[in-house]
């Protein structure tokens, strides 16, 4: 039975088509959910794609978190369902309080679209299970606000509990502790700044993104089987 993935888009999201194409290519069934929806159609995995929800006006994700669909996302997360926010989706999850911390302007004060290397900090999560511990993945980043910040005690707790999933090998944006991706304490809500959907085809530069999506689908499938 294939995994049912819901891709939630807001006005101004722009990576939803790419995520859909890649997830379908990996065998998932994809439903697209508009921001005004109040349910997620019984999905196993929720993906919040990249883009500029509501133009990123005020702060990225600040307005999107009030969309009706976010209550459904929060409910899905609270019941243990898998949620992954990519780039702008990560920003939305932080603003919504589903993930700790915030994403600030890049330290270099410029937008960065670049291939980077990220190291798997914890390979024992639903996002990273297909990768080995410490494995270096080649993924693109594409953001102006990817500079992760969180208070010191939360960071300490996250590190202790292995909630940092991905770290930049060469910190491109000033992120605290070179953090590129995290998950919540329960281990079912993920946020990452790199775009795995852009790294699922060697012709475009890398196939490493498929490891991350594949891991999520495996985990979702596990839940489906249960």
């Amino acid at each position, binding site marked *: 039975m294939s995994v049912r993935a819901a891709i939630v888009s807001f006005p101004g999201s722009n990576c939803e088509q790419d995520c859909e194409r890649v997830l379908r290519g990996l065998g998932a069934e994809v439903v697209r959910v508009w921001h005004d929806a109040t349910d997620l159609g019984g999905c196993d995995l929720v993906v919040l794609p990249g883009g500029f929800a509501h133009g990123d006006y005020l702060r990225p994700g600040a307005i999107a978190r009030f969309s009706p669909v976010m209550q459904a996302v929060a409910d899905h997360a609270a019941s243990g369902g898998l949620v992954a926010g990519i780039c702008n989706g990560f920003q939305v999850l932080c603003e919504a309080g589903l993930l700790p911390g*915030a994403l600030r302007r890049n*330290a270099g*004060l410029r937008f960065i679209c670049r291939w980077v290397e990220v190291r798997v900090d914890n390979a024992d999560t639903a996002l990273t299970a297909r990768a080995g511990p410490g494995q270096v993945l080649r993924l693109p980043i594409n953001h102006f606000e990817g500079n992760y910040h969180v208070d010191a005690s939360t960071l300490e707790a996250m590190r202790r509990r292995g909630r940092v999933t991905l770290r930049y090998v060469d910190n491109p944006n000033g992120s605290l502790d070179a953090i590129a991706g995290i998950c919540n304490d329960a281990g079912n809500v993920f946020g990452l700044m790199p775009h795995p959907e852009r790294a699922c085809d060697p012709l475009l530069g890398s196939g490493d993104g498929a490891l991350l999506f594949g891991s999520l689908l495996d985990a979702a499938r596990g839940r489906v089987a249960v």
Partner: protein
Amino acid sequence: MRFAARVEVMPKAGIADPEGQTIERSLPALGYDGVAAVRVGKLITLELEADDADAARARVEDMCRALLANPVIEDYRVSIA
């Protein structure tokens, strides 16, 4: 009554402000020496109906907590006129 509110949103004390630092570093090149503590924030103005100034302030502070500022990285200050 109708009130005008100004909301200053600033990076929290102690949080790096690269934009402020860049401006601070570029000012001496233009001949402005001795400048320190440059910080860059946002100014939001709005008008609202409220019974009195205190009520207006309370509503705007609510807005700040809900939307206008992100408490993880930002502080805010409200003034009502």
